[in-house]
């Protein structure tokens, strides 16, 4: 009766093995001879990625470990997302990591650990697994954020992230414990059953609010977003990138699963599936707040990473919009957007990494004349930012279209107004970066040509962003399949 289907866990196991191998290498091989770790990681991950893509389309779907672990296309989609994000980060971080004072090798091991945690989150079938995955991801991130030992900002960011993160997961846990108390189980399916029976009461509300707060912290949903900017600014840029795209996506994966399967029932979900208007409206308000606050605070920022941090807060708002209707269309929108968000953001962060590493500064003004000093970087930055802003023909536009058409088809129009208008406002601060890069000649600043892996990363992300904008069908089909595997 106790099934243990290794086949379904192949990617996870592979990544776990890689993690340990990297750790071992880090211990055995002397400092000098660790150049090879980046390529090793990348190629290994490419293999895993290839497998999970195959797995997504043709692999077996099902539930294992007595329902604690779900292996459906929804999880598969997110695994692809995490792996590609990890690969891009690894690729773009080469030079940056080399500039770390110590223990450069372990960086990749930790990266893999975080990836593993995310994959667990996306597949978790009960709250305990979910929590374990979450902590695995988060704790490794604590270390990664503070990884740049000599950089004081880095340490401060680490401490902040640790304390706030731990507190938030305590809240999450408390919520979980309440659910356990109410239903006597941690299985999402069992909880769902039980919650249908239970009438709404302060406890159910408190439990789901705590859960929301826990996930909200991870996806930097206003008003649980305060940490984001500081951590993003302090952390080493590649880590920031990974934090911004992957950990957020992972939290969304978990949130969607929990929200659509369980919490949704009788609290935050649409009345159509037994939810309540208050919950819906609360979510709408939070989403709106997130879009507005994120975009507004981003305007006066002078540090590229901080600006991207707030922009990613706003992006969380857009994604949130897709969750609200809890419909296949909405989930599809979220999945699609999350994926293109990876490429859009990775492009921007790759450039930021490059500049930060080459000029030792993250200030926007130091991007002056980038169009002359490194045309590729400037072009990629522009494309990525415009994709984030949702300007056609870049992928962001299609993504937003999916999200907002999904929520509008449920009859929420106001949120669509806010969303579209705010995304046009966001163009303002994105364009001011573009302005800095193109308007001035950037006298006195060095030429910073990009080359090798990071150049590949940039161009690749740009091409994907453009391609998905012009012809979104393939990804859209995948997203639909994934969404349908979750929402019946």
């Amino acid at each position, binding site marked *: 009766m106790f099934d243990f289907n290794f086949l379904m866990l192949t990617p996870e196991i592979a990544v776990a093995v890689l993690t340990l191998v990297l750790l071992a290498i880090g211990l055995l091989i002397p400092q000098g001879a660790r150049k090879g770790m980046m390529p090793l990681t990348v190629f290994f991950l490419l293999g895993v990625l290839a497998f999970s893509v195959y797995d997504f389309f043709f692999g077996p779907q099902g539930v294992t470990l007595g329902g604690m672990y779900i292996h459906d296309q929804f999880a598969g989609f997110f695994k692809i997302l995490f792996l590609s994000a990890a690969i891009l980060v690894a690729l773009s971080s080469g030079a940056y990591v080399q500039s770390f004072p110590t223990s450069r090798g372990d960086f990749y091991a930790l990266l893999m650990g975080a990836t593993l945690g995310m994959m667990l989150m996306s597949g978790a079938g009960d709250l305990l697994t979910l929590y374990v995955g979450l902590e695995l991801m988060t704790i490794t991130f604590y270390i990664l954020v503070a990884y740049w030992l000599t950089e004081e900002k880095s340490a401060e960011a680490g401490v902040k992230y640790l304390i706030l993160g731990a507190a938030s997961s305590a809240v999450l846990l408390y919520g979980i414990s309440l659910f356990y*108390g109410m239903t006597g189980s941690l299985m999402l399916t069992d909880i769902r059953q039980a919650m249908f029976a239970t009438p709404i*009461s*302060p406890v*159910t*509300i408190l439990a789901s*609010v705590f859960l929301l707060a826990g996930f909200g912290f991870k996806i930097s949903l206003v008003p649980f977003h305060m940490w984001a900017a500081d951590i993003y600014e302090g952390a080493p840029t590649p880590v920031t990138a990974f934090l911004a795209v992957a950990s957020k996506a992972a939290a969304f994966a978990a949130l969607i699963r929990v929200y659509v399967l369980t919490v949704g029932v009788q609290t935050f979900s649409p009345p159509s599936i037994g939810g309540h208007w208050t919950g819906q409206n*609360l979510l709408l308000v939070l989403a709106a707040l997130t879009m507005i606050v994120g975009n507004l605070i981003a305007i006066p*920022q002078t540090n590229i990473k901080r600006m991207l941090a707030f922009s990613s807060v706003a992006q969380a708002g857009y994604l949130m919009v897709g969750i609200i209707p809890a419909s296949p269309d909405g989930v599809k929108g979220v999945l699609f957007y999350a994926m293109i968000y990876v490429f859009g953001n990775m492009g921007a962060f790759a450039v930021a990494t490059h500049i930060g590493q080459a000029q030792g500064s993250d200030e926007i003004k130091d991007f002056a004349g980038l169009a002359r000093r490194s045309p590729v970087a400037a072009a990629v930055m522009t494309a990525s930012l415009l994709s984030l802003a949702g300007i056609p023909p870049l992928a962001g536009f299609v993504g937003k279209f999916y999200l907002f058409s999904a929520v509008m088809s449920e009859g929420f129009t106001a949120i669509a107004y806010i969303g579209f208008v705010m995304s046009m406002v966001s163009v303002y601060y994105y364009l001011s970066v573009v302005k800095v890069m193109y308007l001035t000649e950037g006298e006195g600043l060095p030429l910073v040509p990009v080359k090798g892996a990071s150049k590949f990363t940039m161009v690749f992300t740009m091409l994907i962003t453009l391609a998905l904008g012009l012809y979104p069908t393939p990804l859209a089909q995948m997203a639909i399949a994934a969404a349908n595997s979750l929402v019946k």
Partner: protein
Amino acid sequence: MFKEMHDLFQWAWLIPFLPFLSFLLIALVTRRSKGLSAAVSILAILSALGLAIAIGVGVIQSWNGEEFVGREAVAAANWLNIGGLKIDFGTIVDPLSAMMLFVVTLVASMVQIYSLGYMHGDRGWSRYYAYQSLFAASMLGLVISTNLLQLFIFWELVGLCSYLLIGFWYFKVSAREAAKKAFITTRVGDFGLLLGILFLYNKFGTLDFAALSNAMNTNFQDFALIGGLSYLTVMAILVFIGPIGKSGQFPLHVWLPDAMEGPTPVSALIHAATMVVAGVYLVARIYFLFEHASPAALQFVAGLGAFTAIFAATIAIAQDDIKRILAYSTLSQLGYMMFALGVGSLTASMFHLMTHAFFKALMFLGAGSVIHALHEKQNIWDMGGLWKKMPITGWTFFIGVLAISGVPPFAGFWSKDEILAAALHNGHPVIYAVGLFTAFLTAFYMSRLFFVAFTGPSKPENHPHESPWTMTLPLIILGVLSVVGGLVALPEHNFAFYVHAGELEHEAMDWALAGISVVAGLIGIGLAYTIYVRKAIAAESIVAKFPGIYRLLKNKYYVDEFYLWLIHHIMDGLAKVLYWIDLYIVDGIINGLALFTRGSARTLRRTQTGQLQTYALVFFFAVVVIYLVFAIGEGQLAALNPLAMLGGVK
């Protein structure tokens, strides 16, 4: 080869087309070579003249004394055809247009030949002839238009040419301003005309003159529109606003005197003989509209015309600039033609139009030759004794004066007499009186001009000399026409036979009336003689007697000043106010929004204090708030009891 002259009619389109061709040629090809440009242009206009004469003959031939048996509007081509709007362009040949074609081509060719001498050595020579050709083309096109829109188009084009030619010496500020003024003033008139055209089309679905008049003849029920005026009356008046602007009727007359900034031949052609009478021609063309409209329309025309006639004449008395005097006299004569139409005599008006074209062109060209001889001096008091120095100019000018003063047998006598007779016989005694008085004034100021400029002692600083033959030849030709031009009105072959509206309404020569007007004219001349030649009465003493009136006339009743005030204080003031509004209100709101956004952004940014305990506080506070809102929203008031969540658990 043509069997009948009126087989030519289908070639009428060539008349405007030839000058247009020469315009293109000059503009694109012969720009560089002066001689060629002039040759092309004059050749074109002369052949147009030939064609016009031939067609005129054809018209006379195809006239059996009762009706016109020629082909009228030659088949028209579709020009514009869209849903709800269809316009055909065509050419119309009938006595009216034939007469105009002849007059226009004649004066135009005279002027172009004259210009050979007058414009000699001007650096804008080719440009000048290009404009001249373009003008001739547009004016002739206007004349043979078959419908209102076509006419309007050429109407605007002659306006453009007038603009270009007034501003021909564009580097002169005065010329530049005059050109601008002319265009804008006539534009005001066009506004009315355009409205008329639009509404007429929307009512009748056509703009073709013949079709329109049919539509009105056949069971069209006129109806009251606004202010007790019937529909057709309003239309008539709207359309008439165009002529008010173009033919310099009060109050849109202000541009014509300034238009004298242009080269004098231009003034002769455009601002005396042809373009300014386009208004009169237009009214004649759609005379049927006025006839169907209530009498109010024609009364309006008559009244305005008469007023303009006397108004301009009084101003002319007090002017010193030779060209301005002629300009005001032109205004006055245009008023004559208008009220001739107003009192219902199309014939008389057209007749006067023709004769006036002859003698006014003559006098302008004469003035031109004088100015040419005196090196751009225009004040008549700087002249004097020119008659001996410039005999041809002097004699021809004298003929012109006699003609305009209505001294028999010169051309002006016949036409003016016919107008006055029509006024009286059609029951407009007041208008008749005004006309008569105007005739007296006209005779007075014209002979004043003549005596002061041509007789008396010659000024020592002037060394005038007779102009070259290119300039005197046109003078002579026009002079002859001013003498004999009126004889067509002699009963045996009467002008009205050719040009008339509806039934034949020709005034039989009324020798009594003729006598009166002749006397009026002679008195005028005599008065001028006594004052300016005999010096029996000192002009100064008269001025001293009525200083107010003199100043009023000298300053043209301050109409220009009024308009300037209107433009500079009202229009520009409004413009500035609106601009302010645009900057600080319409745009201000936008910028305000942007400022607000940035401001709130800066404020929100301050919430990121960097204190992790603040962050934690916000976090938990938010949790509590959301919880309470949710619970209360769901009516779970028990939530307010802190222990309730425990009680909720099984």
